[in-house]
């Protein structure tokens, strides 16, 4: 089969892989955005013990490889009779990995809000919860948006690591196709172009967001 017709014949399989990559990114991002909130609250807590816990969670996750973390979920959880599908393991691993980064982003946003906002809210006799939820959080969120968008992009690229726990995303699909046909150059180049086709325009959008909203 010629290279061109082979390329057309495998494109649907690669696109299916790309779809899995996008799904894994979306689910992991949702997990990380939600789990980032409690971790950030630990990190900025007034109680020393909670703060130490927050710092410990964040540094362990940030200073160890995603691959090693995925292996922990993939090989260690079954020891405790927790059987999860590969995609769930992947989303759990990727999501918790980025939770640490996103918690730190939330914190940077939180710290970028001037103390005067808290003082003004106190002067208006607003409670701590109302102040945090209605005054501080909306201001803290704005500069984090470009950073979060950047992490979304990083996460999309990192879905390739999910291949190691047998998720057939774009990279995994490429590997299994090339193991059959040995057309490494063609397949890997197609895969690279597909990644770039998503990441390059997305990167431009992130840069635009950075200019519009500022950045922490």
């Amino acid at each position: 089969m010629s290279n061109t017709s082979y390329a057309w014949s495998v494109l649907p399989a690669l696109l299916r892989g790309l779809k899995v990559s996008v799904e894994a990114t979306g689910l992991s991002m949702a997990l990380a955005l939600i789990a980032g909130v409690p971790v950030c609250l630990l990190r900025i807590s007034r109680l020393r013990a909670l703060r130490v816990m927050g710092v410990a969670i964040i540094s362990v996750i940030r200073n160890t490889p995603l691959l090693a973390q995925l292996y922990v979920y993939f090989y260690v959880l079954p020891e405790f009779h927790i059987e999860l599908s590969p995609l769930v393991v992947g989303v759990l691993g990727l999501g918790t990995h980025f939770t640490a980064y996103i918690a730190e982003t939330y914190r940077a946003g939180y710290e970028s809000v001037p103390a005067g906002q808290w003082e003004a809210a106190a002067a208006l006799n607003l409670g701590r919860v109302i102040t945090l939820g209605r005054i501080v959080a909306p201001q803290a969120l704005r500069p984090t948006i470009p950073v979060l968008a950047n992490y979304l992009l990083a996460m999309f690229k990192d879905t390739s690591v999910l291949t190691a726990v047998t998720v057939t995303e774009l990279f995994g699909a490429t590997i299994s196709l090339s193991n059959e046909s040995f057309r490494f150059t063609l397949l890997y180049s197609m895969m690279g172009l597909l990644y770039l086709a998503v990441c390059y325009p997305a990167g431009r959008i992130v840069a635009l967001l950075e200019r519009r909203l500022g950045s922490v």
Partner: protein
Amino acid sequence: MHLTSYEIHTILTGIGKTVVIAVLANVMAFPIGIAAGMARLSRWWIVRFVTGVYIEVFRGTSALVQLFYGYFVLPQIGIHLGSMTVGTVVLALNAGAYAAETARGAIQSVPSGQMEAAAALNLSWLTTRFRIILPQAWRTMLPSFGNLAIDVLKGTSFLSLVGVPEATATITNMSLTHALKPDSAYVGLLVIYLVLSIPLVIVVHLLERRAHRHLRPVAAKAT
């Protein structure tokens, strides 16, 4: 669970490989990054364009993908390198691309008056770059270079997937051959990387202190 001295030796060798790869890749990455960051601000569009392509390609795909590309595609076009060499170079080029964007931003953040003052003092191109601009930009670059250095360390784990017997590969193997139970194996693996990251954090901290030394107040002279 007891490990034989042979198994302990294997694990230590694997950790040693991880350290060597991480150090070599880091040593290559930052000069590449600073050079590419400067090239991105070149007067000639062709230099800007070529570095731009390098940066976007390496930032647009993951290190793992680039590693496999280097490992499987380079031999097909007649370039035969060991998996460890390919891995180290790919990690360096990947981190270099990220470092380049940091370096560019840091260089641009140096006030333009510095450049003008250097021109007024008739300093050469080289002196201006290396004695005036870069030392000031270096301060701004360091914190994100520290993060990148840790990313490189973490990235070395990908080399296990192309058959380099570094820490992750060694531990995975021992778990698969039941020399270690999965829980102690993989939690131990996390501990290994955590411990390896400590010296990196310390080195970056010391470099940051050094870069800021002229900003510290001078100790009052005893009279």
